[in-house]
């Protein structure tokens, strides 16, 4: 069985949560947040069609680059920074074990 990875997630109040994320369930970061009952809506269901799961990557992990859809959504999202990503587009993998990520303000 694949070992779980760890994600350090800082919520909108600045509180850090250490989340354990399985690799064998094809989950993305938005789903991990929802599973831990963190305030991430995921309104569009994970299609990069809303920005309710926007977050800022604060560690130096190399993550798969933004797709054209994610790029387009982020160009219409608010509070966007250079390190902004949509959580629903970040799949759990060994490459992001220990990732530090902060939730963007809700719109």
């Amino acid at each position, binding site marked *: 069985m694949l070992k779980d990875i760890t994600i350090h997630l800082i919520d909108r109040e600045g509180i850090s949560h250490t989340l354990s994320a399985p690799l064998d369930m094809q989950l993305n970061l938005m789903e991990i947040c929802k599973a831990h009952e963190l305030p991430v*809506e995921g*309104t569009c269901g994970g299609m990069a069609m*809303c920005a309710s799961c926007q977050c800022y990557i604060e560690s130096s992990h190399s993550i798969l680059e933004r797709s054209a859809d994610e*790029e*387009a959504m982020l160009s*219409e999202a*608010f509070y966007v920074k250079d390190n902004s990503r949509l959580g629903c587009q970040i799949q759990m993998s060994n490459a992001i074990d220990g990732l530090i990520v902060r939730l963007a303000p809700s719109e």
Partner: protein
Amino acid sequence: MGESAISLVKADDNNFLVTTNKGTQHLAPVVVIAGGLGTFEPRKPPIEGLENFEGKGVNYIIKDPEVYHNKKVIIAGGGDSALDWTIFLENIAASVTLIHRRNEFRGALDSVEKVQQLKNKGLIQLLTPAEVIALEGDDFLDSVIVNHLGDSKSIECDSFIPLFGLTPKLGPIANWGLEIKKNAILVDNSLDYQTNIPGIYAIGDVNTYPGKLKLILCGFHEATLMCQSAFKRIHPDRKNVLKYTTVSGVAGFDGSLKEASKSFIKAIK
């Protein structure tokens, strides 16, 4: 149709009164809220003082394009709405400036090409990558401050139309005295999906309860149990028996009975 419920109050011992945004009133012994994620409202960019200019130069929805006749209009956004209204208002307005955070637009290819032509002909101003960062004006909007490639400049305008799509909001439902949990209405899933106010039910994506799944399958299930309960509430003296349309058909809107064709009974020799 085309109206949204604004208030829900108890009218008397047996009835609720629902009032819509257009003033229509419904009196009913039972109210079922099947409101999905809520009402869709425009996404508003986080610009300081934006709401002070709403209706005074800032609009998120275009109801009557003629309002923009001979006006200097600034549109912000990168999707179909921004493209379509840029194309449409170019014919009406004195000037149209389209502002988007990057050069790429996400919309129908035909619209993107039309906007490109309008820009090439100098009929519209296109500012990319750029962003409206502030608004100016005393009572009414006079100009917007735009950050374009790192430089800030003021652009005079009569109208600023941010078109960043819609987002669902629970809206007035939250103020009806219903118990709300995680942006949804808490209901009794052990029985009939009634809310904390007897006689008001909530079904589908708008409700929540332990183990809630936002699936259409679950929404239909919730609706059936709600109907049974609502019938008993409305007709406490009548017996209700579950019937199957596959057995007894269903009465059509024309009054006739619709039913599946029956199989033949014929001997095989």
